[in-house]
């Protein structure tokens, strides 16, 4: 990505002209390159590429985090990782989150966005439901609340004894008693996914609304004149026209799902939740490094695996989009 592409022939100048200019570096040229190419590149190398190289190296050592000794142990950390029950469990949980969360969040956000922008009366101008502005604000609201607050708040709502949720269910006649939603291995992960989705649907909805508003209204009107129903408009007009936005949203939501550190830490005060059913990779990484045994080398190896999984996820989303006929040149991400 850092390779310099071949100089293009400019229409009216030609290669010779380009060469002549290159021989005379002016202050203008040098400062232009320094500011717009050199500086970002240096920052990128120093703060992105260099830590990454360091991370890969540290993952091959038995560094304990507190000393200068970094004994090189080759791939041993990776061997340990893939035999470690907790890590494998965390990888499974993270993968479930990565597969399910973006799907439900995006589908929900898209449906809501569509209703708010296009779901209005079928006569007159194409518009959203009555009072759509209100729904937009209401559903965006959770996104404004910091993740940690979302976690604590829902932790209280799902409290088995004093929580609103059980009280509500019991009051409307569902005999749920004191069921610990976040304390039972069967429901913990699902409940967490609900909470994370709750926090993000509004944001993606607003994102999709903006994208849909960018589509010329004539297109929808023409489709309607041709007799297309709302569902058909959504599937055949809206989605194909905003698929790049959907792809971007999908990747972002996937990254959030694969991390999930703040939510899981706030919701499960004993890390990992019931029977480790909500242990995610970022948590396992954190506790391996800072949990008392000082296994920074092993923790870094987890970080490397996590980033590879995230990259694979992004690649998969791009791949699926391409196979299903998305634009060959994506310009948005």
């Amino acid at each position, binding site marked *: 990505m850092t390779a310099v592409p071949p100089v293009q022939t400019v229409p009216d100048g030609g290669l010779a002209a380009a060469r002549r200019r290159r021989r005379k570096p*002016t202050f203008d040229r040098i400062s232009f390159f320094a500011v717009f190419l050199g500086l970002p590149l240096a920052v990128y190398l120093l703060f992105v590429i260099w830590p990454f190289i360091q*991370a890969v190296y540290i993952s091959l050592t038995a560094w304990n985090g*507190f000393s*200068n000794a970094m004994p090189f142990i080759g791939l041993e950390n990776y061997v340990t990782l893939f035999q470690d029950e*907790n890590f494998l469990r965390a990888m499974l949980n993270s993968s479930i989150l990565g597969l399910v969360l973006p799907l439900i969040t995006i589908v929900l956000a898209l449906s809501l966005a569509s209703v708010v922008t296009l779901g209005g009366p079928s006569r007159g101008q194409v518009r959203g439901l009555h009072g759509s502005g209100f729904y937009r604000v209401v559903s965006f609201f959770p996104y404004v609340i910091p993740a940690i607050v979302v976690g604590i708040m829902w932790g209280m709502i799902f409290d088995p004894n004093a929580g609103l949720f059980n009280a509500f269910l019991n009051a409307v006649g569902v005999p749920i008693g004191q069921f610990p939603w976040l304390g039972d291995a069967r429901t913990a992960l699902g409940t967490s996914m609900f909470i994370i989705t709750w926090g993000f649907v509004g944001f993606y909805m607003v994102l999709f609304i903006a994208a849909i508003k960018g589509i010329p209204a004539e297109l929808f009107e023409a489709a309607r004149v041709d007799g297309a129903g709302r569902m058909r408009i959504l599937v055949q007009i809206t989605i194909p026209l905003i698929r790049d936005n959907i792809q971007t949203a999908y990747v972002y939501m996937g990254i959030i799902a694969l991390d999930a550190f703040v939510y899981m830490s706030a919701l499960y005060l*004993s890390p990992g939740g019931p029977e480790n059913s909500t242990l995610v990779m970022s948590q396992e990484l954190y506790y391996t490094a800072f949990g008392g045994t*000082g296994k920074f080398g092993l923790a870094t190896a987890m970080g490397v695996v996590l980033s590879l999984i995230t990259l694979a996820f*992004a690649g998969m989303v791009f791949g699926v989009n391409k196979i299903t006929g998305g634009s060959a040149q994506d310009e948005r*991400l």
Partner: protein
Amino acid sequence: MGPLASTTRLHLLEATLNRIHTQSALGRRNFLRGTLAAAVLIPTASVLAGCAGGGTTPGGTASGAVTAGNPFGVASGSTVDAVIFKGGYDVKYVEFAAEILAKGEAKATAKVSPSTDITGELQPRFAGGTPPDLIDNSGAKKIGMTTIVDQLEDLQGVVDAKNLEGKVIKDTLYPGVLTPGTYGGKLASINYVLTVFAVWYSASLFKELGLTPPKTWDEMLKLGEDAKAQGKYLFTWGTEAATYYQEFALASAIKEGGDDVRLAIENLKPDAWSHPAIQDVFTALETCVKNGYFKPGGSGTKFTAAQASWSNAQEALLYPSGSWIENEMKDQTKAGFEMTGMPVPHKSSSPKLGADAIHSASDEPFVVPSAAKNPAGGKELLRTMLSQEAAANFAKTILAPTIVKGTVPADGFGSTALVSQTKMLDAAADNVFDIRFGNVYGLNKDQLVTWNSFLDGKIDAAGLTADLQKISDKVANDKSITKIEIK
């Protein structure tokens, strides 16, 4: 600049724009994926922050003359950099000692910096070779002692020195309080606060309900039944404190079976958890779970909420915990709740360590890193804290005893919990033991999972035993973890 120059500039801009437009889509996408990767890697990068540091600089600045009033030779007017965990005890007690220090012979100034994230704050400083002079390595984010033990000063010199009142410090301490800070023969930390582990109850509530505090497991199970009849639970637990019941079970088993049990568990021996003394307690606990003596839903309840259901709502009768419980629940304790501690129950009529044996340990480990700038100053501040004056101030303001004897009056400053603590300590005399393996090897996170399942009734005593053994075995078989032989 003339017109030519501006034309050139325009051409350049055009060429650049053209290049951007015609560059292959693949190359650009790769670059963008790289940016994406960067976003992913930021968490990784922050883990690395620590390694940006440099080499270790050998500790020690210019030192002052060693005198009776300045036994470690602190340089006159030097600064002591102290990083103190700010938890339930706050940091005022160290600032109090710092004031005394400033008036002392060395005229050293201590800078007391409170912290709630000892590891996060100090890991880069350790790795960079610039640790502070004195650390209170406590709290949920304390540094695992085994990872830094060889970078710490041996503090034997401090306890061998005389305190400010002229007495040799080690003669002023409760018995056994230095053991928890000893790692392979080296006194790596001096743990300042004395904690008594016990089963806590309200003496007033027991009187009101006509119940007797149980001494044995038989009495405990009977009490469970009586409590049920009165619409109360025997125990309650919170999700992040489920392992309090591990401490409770182990203390009971060690009381019954003595050092055999303790040393096997502490030194991660195979099948240690299958010892009959431990199994008896696990079975009894299993009965409590099965018979519904535990308030349900604990694995989804925050521990302070669970504790309040004992100290405020009084739904449960008993709660096993360390003596910090009184201070912790200060604002959520019902008026007239006479909080009292009693030793954990035992199985037989003649437990090996005696019925009065207790689990008591010194906590709040203070350490002095060898690479610090002013380690002598760190030791001097610690010596000041161990003086009668500073220790008495701690007991009075925090309502908890330090490891220094004779700082709590008979009325316990009006606290029934503190009075019962002193009573238990006196009754136990030398029959005091500690349980360290969980902290030493950082096992709490994994043990919490299985304890929550057990108290929830999801697994039985056999399942609990198997899980706990697996957690111990994992550390025992991990060659990369330095083992400390616990005696």
